[in-house]
């Protein structure tokens, strides 16, 4: 772990402040050449891009199914990612298996790409558990609900990786609203001071529930990072190729030991903040229409059709795959068991705690006395 501020390295070639969006695929699906970023995605064309397309379609389909499950009373809440598929899939697929993720609660496509089992995506939202998966099984922390808190965890983990002598990178996801939080600003100071191998991945989806990004930032968010000594990239968050390229570039820096990078993925939250939200009270329909024309999936589809890789038949096959995943997702969700009554006492502490043990045994006796507990303690 380095403890001085003087050796934070800032690569000269990273724009600082970033003056334009990195874009490799425009909204019409035209491939835009970029000598700097093209090499990072030279392996992604034809069939490889088709697989990316399938991932985008599948995560959108899962998201639609989750919203339906919420409307049917099977989930308490769901935070849709509609519109942010490219930002999440592109960045998640840039990661190595050993890279570690600290995300917020909307990165369900990241979790999907990470190999999280389908029902585990909704345990938190169905209310059967506070987390869906074991973080160490997929190298992804359980999603953070407190805005921005996870960014500091990422810096600590990253510093720990370097202390361990491994070149693992850490990435943390957060939104435009989070950039106002003290924790995110502290995380950037700490990351810069310690040269932490961490990527700050901000999905600027233009909204913090009902508050437009203009309430958080008067200038592009990516412009803040250089002030902390962290180079930044501003990327078209609806362009999966550009996001993949930018994240790979930032991760390369981290893997090389060149310190933190900040990415602002400019995107748009096409749905509500959560299923409890009502965007009709604050979203300008014209603005939403403008962003609908920049859809992250449509442009990949257009590009693949132009290239002759995607036909009506392949598109139908991808849609069928997505439907199958959604059906499995739904079935897995409905099969999640409710927690046992005394499970509320489990895992509060790692070691025995006398006060809690007494409370648990009293509750167990009470449940038995009223016939709500039979047989074993659970």
């Amino acid at each position: 772990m380095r403890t001085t501020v003087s050796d934070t390295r800032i690569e000269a070639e990273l724009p600082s402040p970033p003056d334009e969006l990195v874009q490799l695929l425009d909204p019409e699906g035209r491939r835009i050449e970029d000598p700097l970023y093209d090499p990072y995605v030279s392996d992604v064309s034809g069939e490889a891009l088709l697989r990316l397309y399938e991932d985008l379609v599948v995560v959108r389909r899962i998201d639609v199914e989750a919203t339906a499950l919420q409307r049917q009373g099977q989930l308490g809440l769901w935070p849709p990612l509609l519109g942010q598929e490219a930002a999440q899939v592109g960045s998640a697929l840039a990661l190595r298996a050993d890279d570690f993720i600290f995300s917020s609660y909307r990165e369900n496509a990241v979790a999907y790409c990470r190999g999280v089992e389908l029902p585990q995506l909704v345990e938190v939202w169905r209310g059967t558990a506070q987390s869906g998966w074991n973080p160490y099984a997929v190298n992804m922390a359980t999603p953070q609900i407190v805005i921005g808190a996870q960014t500091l965890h990422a810096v600590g983990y990253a510093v720990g990786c370097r202390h361990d002598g491994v070149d693992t990178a850490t990435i943390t996801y957060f939104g435009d609203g989070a950039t106002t939080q003290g924790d995110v600003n502290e995380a950037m100071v700490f990351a810069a001071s310690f040269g932490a191998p961490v990527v700050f991945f901000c999905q600027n989806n233009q909204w913090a529930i009902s508050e437009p990004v203009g309430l958080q930032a008067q200038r592009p968010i990516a412009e803040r990072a250089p002030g902390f000594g962290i180079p930044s990239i501003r990327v078209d968050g609806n362009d999966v190729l550009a996001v993949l390229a930018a994240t790979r570039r930032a991760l390369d820096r981290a893997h090389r030991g060149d310190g933190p990078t900040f990415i602002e993925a400019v995107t748009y939250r096409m749905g509500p903040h959560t299923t409890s939200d009502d965007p009709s009270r604050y979203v300008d329909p014209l603005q939403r229409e403008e962003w609908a024309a920049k859809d992250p999936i449509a442009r990949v589809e257009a590009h693949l059709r132009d290239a002759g890789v995607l036909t009506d038949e392949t598109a139908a096959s991808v849609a069928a795959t997505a439907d199958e995943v959604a059906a499995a997702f739904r079935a897995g969700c409905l099969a999640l068991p409710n927690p046992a009554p005394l499970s509320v006492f489990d895992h509060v502490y790692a070691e025995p705690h006398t006060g809690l043990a007494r409370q648990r045994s009293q509750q167990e006796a009470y449940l038995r006395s009223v016939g709500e507990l039979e047989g074993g303690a659970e």
Partner: protein
Amino acid sequence: MTELTLAKAVNSGLRRALADDDRVVLLGEDIGPLGGVFRVTDGLQRDFGTDRVMDMPLAESGIIGMAVGLAYRGFRPVCEIQFDGFIYPAFDQIVAQVAKLHYRTRGAVRMPITIRVPFGGGIGAVEHHSESPEAYFAHTAGLRVVTCSTPQDAHTMIRQAIACDDPVLFFEPKRRYWTKGEVDEDADFPFDRARVLLEGADVTIVAYGPLVATAIDAAIAAGDEGTSVEVIDLRSLSPLDLDTVEASVRKTGRLVITHEAAQFGGLGAEIAASITDRCFLYLEAAPARVTGFDTPYPSARAEEHFLPDLDRILDAVDRVLGRQNALTGWSAS
């Protein structure tokens, strides 16, 4: 056995923990070359390096949040919060993250984080440097809260806190940092068990941290007047060792609890309620609390009017014995 001040005893405990386990890392403000504002980390960065003893940028939430990430990675971070009154910027990370991550992840992620906090008044300090915020943390599930009153306990308990797989708030009684006592590095005892310091038959006084010494003074003074007082040092505030207090109160039938923290919703209220629950038929009098008042901590030259002292404790001893004084409602005249 070595004679050490309480501050040096914490230092030697930290030194042993760093030497015994290379996953132990220290994080804090001014803990490096300066050795901390109370010199508790004196010499540790020199001997264990800047990777193990890290001076932190000035942000308490950042320190604790970074410790969470290090713990995720398998480290055992020991964080120093410079003064009690500066812990609040870290409150969210402590209460919403450190305390809950083991529960949230169904035991997958452990948070063996120790948070050292010099606490309490009596040193003539400015605002924010004399507070007793322990009840906030004792109220939070997932945290353990302990405090020491002697150099021996300081040394042994800081090592146990660091070795514990749960997060531990470790409150150090800053006005007792310079108290000297014998320290046996090989001593071992369960750090969540209270200790009966003085045995007595008439009244039980429960204290912790800086007021343990005051409680002993009060017990000696009461003894001179023929009252036999038992003194219990709680050591652990979460969990509370109520079994030890219960056994004592069954014997004495009278309970006085003292702490510097405000009375309302404090540890004294919890102990009084729990002991009343457990010992109702053994109590000869309602439990009495001698605490800081429900005011902000006052200015330095007024702190003697705020802090529990020997006379106020003796006054409460009189009260639970049914002797007349101002608070029993009897007129002295």
